[in-house]
């Protein structure tokens, strides 16, 4: 306040790089108005939308504001895609999940880091799986098959087996070796 007429009426702005600030009349609160790129907040202490970090090191070592890293599994047209401090992705797309959208959601498989592949649904055969129809290997998509059941989704019997029954699996073929062609 320069109207009081004492030395030290004008204080330097408590903002990074001597950038500008305003003092709010009613509260006396000082707000930085020209934070460095990517930074915002009362003292430029937080990262802007689409960025994360801890530029002033308020909770540990200072981390400059960097773009949200969501492995390409967020849409650039969205807002609020990651937590401004931790960088945890908040709007993962295409059935991905994880702090950086780096893995498939439960019930899906594929390569979360390769958008050309995309995530496919496990869709395990309800008859042939020993687990849940939504449970499969996150990369290969292999479901947990009952005994002598095969196929990625456990939908058919192994060679030499037949009669897939839910909860049981497949029975061995009891063909007479003399009369069989295979």
């Amino acid at each position, binding site marked *: 306040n320069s109207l009081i007429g004492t030395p030290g009426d004008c204080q330097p702005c408590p903002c990074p790089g001597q950038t500008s600030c*305003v003092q*709010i*009349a*009613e*509260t006396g*609160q000082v*707000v*930085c*108005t*020209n*934070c460095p*790129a990517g930074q*915002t*907040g*009362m003292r430029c202490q*937080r990262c*802007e*939308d*689409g960025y994360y970090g801890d530029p002033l090191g308020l909770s540990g070592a200072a981390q400059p504001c960097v773009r949200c890293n969501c492995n390409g599994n967020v*849409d650039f*047209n*969205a*807002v*609020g895609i990651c937590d*401004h401090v931790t960088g945890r992705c908040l*709007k993962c797309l295409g059935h991905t999940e994880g702090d950086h959208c780096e893995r498939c959601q439960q019930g899906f498989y594929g390569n979360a880091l390769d958008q050309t592949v995309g995530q496919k649904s496990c869709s395990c055969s309800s008859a042939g799986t020993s687990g849940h129809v939504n449970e499969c290997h996150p990369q290969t998509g292999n479901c947990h098959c009952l005994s002598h059941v095969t196929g990625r989704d456990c939908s058919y019997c192994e060679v030499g087996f037949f009669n897939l029954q839910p909860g049981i699996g497949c029975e061995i073929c009891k063909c007479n070796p003399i009369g069989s062609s295979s």
Partner: protein
Amino acid sequence: PRPDVDALTPGTHLLFAQSGRIEHVPLGGYDMKKNDAKPVLHLPEKVIIGVAYDCVEKTVYWTEITSPSISKANIEGGEPTSVISSGLESPEGIAIDHLGRTMFWTDSAKDRIEVASLDGSNRRVLINTDLVNPRAIIADPSNGNLYWADWNRKAPKIETSYMDGSNRRVLVRDNLGLPNGLTYDPHSSQLCWADAGTHKMECMDPGRGSRSTVLERIQYPFGMTAFGKNIYYTDWQRDAVIAVDRYASRESDEFQPQKRTRLYGIATAYAQCPAGQNYCSGN
């Protein structure tokens, strides 16, 4: 921490969100008085997305995604007040029915459109089906219509319904990309949108369905607002508010705030409320 409001002078203004603040530019006729632009509201810890203006109480309303909420402040110097702070995830567009004294908003994470009285009471879900990325929302209280845009990558669309959510219809679904901005001019009955995918600004008469292109090769529109012959939109690539003469189909001016960072929603703060009444205004 309590932020602050700087009172605005009488007249018509543009209000727009930049991270941590709502800025304003006075309009002289249709011209942006850029030298008189200044922040009207400092909200340094917030990421403000949508902005709407209630011409009756001269109050600005905004959505905010940091601690998802809807707040308001009188632009003649009132304190920011939270209106809704629960049950929100990613509130984006906001629209005011100044006659019925209600507000409408989209939530892109809950995938729904809600309505409430301006004080936050009487809240209810209006639309919660077939929404993927709802963003812009506009009310036309004189005719009782609601318009919104959904930038769903797989099937972007612009829809309408009555203000109670009934009679929902898709207005536009062809040749859309990322329709981020939407505005309605009651005088010309034109619904206009700005598309960051097709890079076009287009208008249509929602009653007749005729569609026309206002401007092509625009960069990255986000919010937009109509005032008379002009449309003003915010752009994520240019970090600016751009004025477009709707009838001349040309850009007429640009305002780039000193701080280079994304601009979000924009609204016209009318000097006076547009004339009109609706069935709900007596409630």
